């Protein structure tokens, strides 16, 4: 087996780590929470960073009329299926395909990841803006519009008394490594191909 195909094989397998490690994490810090509240986002589940964190986030958020974080969302079915499908595709390519297919897989993964991030953004936006009209506390921005409580997509942000942090976790790292590896495989494959052509 060619070196580039071995790298492609690794690229296809690496995203499977998403089934073990969380993809993303949102952490909320406040003076009353010396141990911050945190939620891990997996491709198939939301989990507490510490026991009962999601319940306690919901309790906090109900004051401003935010919906409860759902037990399940459709994405929990779609994302795992997508990962399994792309991994199988990646494996087929690693065994059968040439470097051009590697690039194809790389582009596919980039597009799908971007779509996933956009979906995450939409959910966050709805979660932060689609507020109960009977909310206990209503806040407005300086311009008079209703204040939203959307956590950042990436990075840190102050939301009332909380400081919210939103960062990728180990699962996302493995996914990123997989995608990068497929591109490296493509470059290696291309180089080999050129060498083969020249000799």
């Amino acid at each position, binding site marked *: 087996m060619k070196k580039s195909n071995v790298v492609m094989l690794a690229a296809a397998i690496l995203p499977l780590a998403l089934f073990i490690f969380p993809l993303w994490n949102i952490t909320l810090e406040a003076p009353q929470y010396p141990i911050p509240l945190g939620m891990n986002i997996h491709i198939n589940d939301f989990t507490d960073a510490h026991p*009962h964190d999601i*319940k306690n986030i919901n309790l906090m958020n109900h004051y401003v009329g935010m919906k409860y974080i759902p037990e399940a969302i459709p994405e929990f079915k779609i994302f795992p299926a997508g990962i399994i499908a792309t991994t199988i595709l990646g494996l087929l390519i690693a065994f059968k395909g040439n470097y051009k297919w590697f690039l194809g897989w790389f582009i596919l993964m980039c597009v799908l990841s971007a779509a996933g991030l956009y979906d995450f953004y939409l959910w966050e936006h709805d979660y932060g803006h689609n507020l109960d009209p009977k909310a*206990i506390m209503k806040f407005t921005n300086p311009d008079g519009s209703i204040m939203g409580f959307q956590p950042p997509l990436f990075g840190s942000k102050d939301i009332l008394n909380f400081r919210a942090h939103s960062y990728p976790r180990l699962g996302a790292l493995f996914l990123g490594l997989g995608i990068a590896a497929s591109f490296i495989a493509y470059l290696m494959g291309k180089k080999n191909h050129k060498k083969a052509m020249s000799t």
Partner: protein
Amino acid sequence: MKNIFKACFALSFLTIAFVSCNNSDSSKSNGALTSSAAEKVYVAPGEHDEFYAFVSGGFSGQLSVYGLPSGRLFKVIPVFSQDAEKAWGYNEETKPMLNTSHGFVPWDDSHHPDISQTAGEIDGRYVFINGNNTPRIAKIDLTTFETTEIIEVPNSAGNHSSSFVTENTEYVVAGTRFSVPVPQRDMSIKDYKGNFKGALSFISVDPENGRMDMKFQVMMPGFNYDLSHPGRGKSHGWFFFTTYNSEEAHSLLEVNASQNDKDFIAAINWKKIEEYVNNGGGTMMPANYAHNVYDEHTHTATSTMKKEVRVVNPTEVPGAVYLLPTPKSPHGCDVDPSGEYIVGNGKLSANLTVHSFTKMIDAIENEKFDGDAYGIPILKFEDVLAGTVEQPGLGPLHTEFDGKGNAYTTFFISSEVVKWKLGTWEVIDRKPTYYSVGHLMIPGGNSQKPFGKYVLAMNKITKDRYLPTGPEVTQSAQLYDITGEKMELLLDFPTVGEPHYAAGCPADLIKPRSKKIFKLEENKHEYAALSEADTKVVRNGNEVHVYMTMIRSHFAPDNIEGIKVGDKVYFHITNLEQDYDVPHGVSMIGANTSELLIMPGQTETFVWEPKQVGVWPFYCTDFCSALHQEMQGYVRVSPRNSNIDLSWSLGED
């Protein structure tokens, strides 16, 4: 003239400079002294103390939890007392904890806390404490800091030589101060001598779940068994009790019990008696005593009346019990970390007597006896004496050890703590106490491994030491640094109730295991509503059970109708929170009981018997959240003969 004026001015200036310089000097040196003591007890905001101290409340029946070295009070744990703040002894769940053979006894005199041990070292699992008046032993669980078990001690009165634990917490031991007829019967007090008995109780502690059981009682002669401590290390397997009133007086004891030149320390080989009992020895005698257990999962206590107890006549177990003559009504009975020295603090003696365990064993083996008392061999004073601390002070009461070869004894009459050396018996230092010290405590002092950094002196009198508060002034403890050759007084701090004795240990032993919440899924309370969907109101004759929940910031249900005058309404309320430090309270107007203070995941019950027609509010009593003031509800009470059906709701218009 001008020059004179100038000179005067210069002189006065110099004087002022000199004086103020002097002033600043003296204030500086005072400041330096004060600040060094202050620095030693200063625990910065947000920082934690190095030690926990569990200080008994005496006649308050409680146990208070302090931090050392700061002397800050964290919690007052109700043990033998009702506590309206925590509903302890008021709510339906904890009332059975105060049940006794005499019925509900909501008070006692709590004296001697002792922390459980493993292999001779403090393990921080439980604190045991005795109720002196209606003899009881309580166990406090140090994951919840709540009293979880109380066992009544039969055949006992003035449960004072208690509640000390053996090296592996095999037993918590309770000795009677007042001898009584056993079994209790109608007889003349004048027939005390030879007829009254002193019961020394050995309560086994289950190594797994800590459950207490009255294993056996040794029926000793009718002396007063004052204090006790276990043997440790080489003397593990023995227990030592001081006695006074070996005269067996029954009246005017201050004179009549102070006649004998020497009383005794009773040495009990409990291992030998345990073996005897395990082989069927002793007799089961009829008895009646309460055993109350609080279950952390049902959040409910049950009281069981036990009907018999195993008693052992000490003369039936050869080699199990000996008497060590000890001068003048000894009070404290303290064993050093090595287990070799047994200090008898003869409270009316000018000297402090120390016995040697090795010498005692030697005297027993060579049968060097000096008669007997009711068949119990008496050893010769000279044969067991290790040494005497000569004229250390007046009125010795208690001794603790620092683990570095030094002992610290309190002197009640001369009001001081005296440091002396084990083996050489020389006095090293003495420091006054303010005033009239009783017990003292070194963290881990009753174990093989004391943490000899501080000694805490617990005083009986404070007089002018604090701002006055009328005729009744605060009780007090004092903290001394004992790391140097000389002791240094660092801090006075007030205590809750009379601090008889205390037990201390490094905070790290307890802190990591302290529970934050009760898990809702583990709540097995009979009347728990584990979600708002489970809430309901059920009528059974004139008994009404409300299955209610509370979470920030509402009760469910919060509107109830169909209650009638004459009903007995049980509010069973579950706190659905699962976050640290989010208790909710609840109280109902006119309820003849205390509030409830319910921890996350816990269920508690109060009873309300409405006597007046109307609409009556209830509310959350613990400021729980930004919407705490909104956390309230109404109950409609209709006339006795009304036919309004029960209904309940939350959030309906």
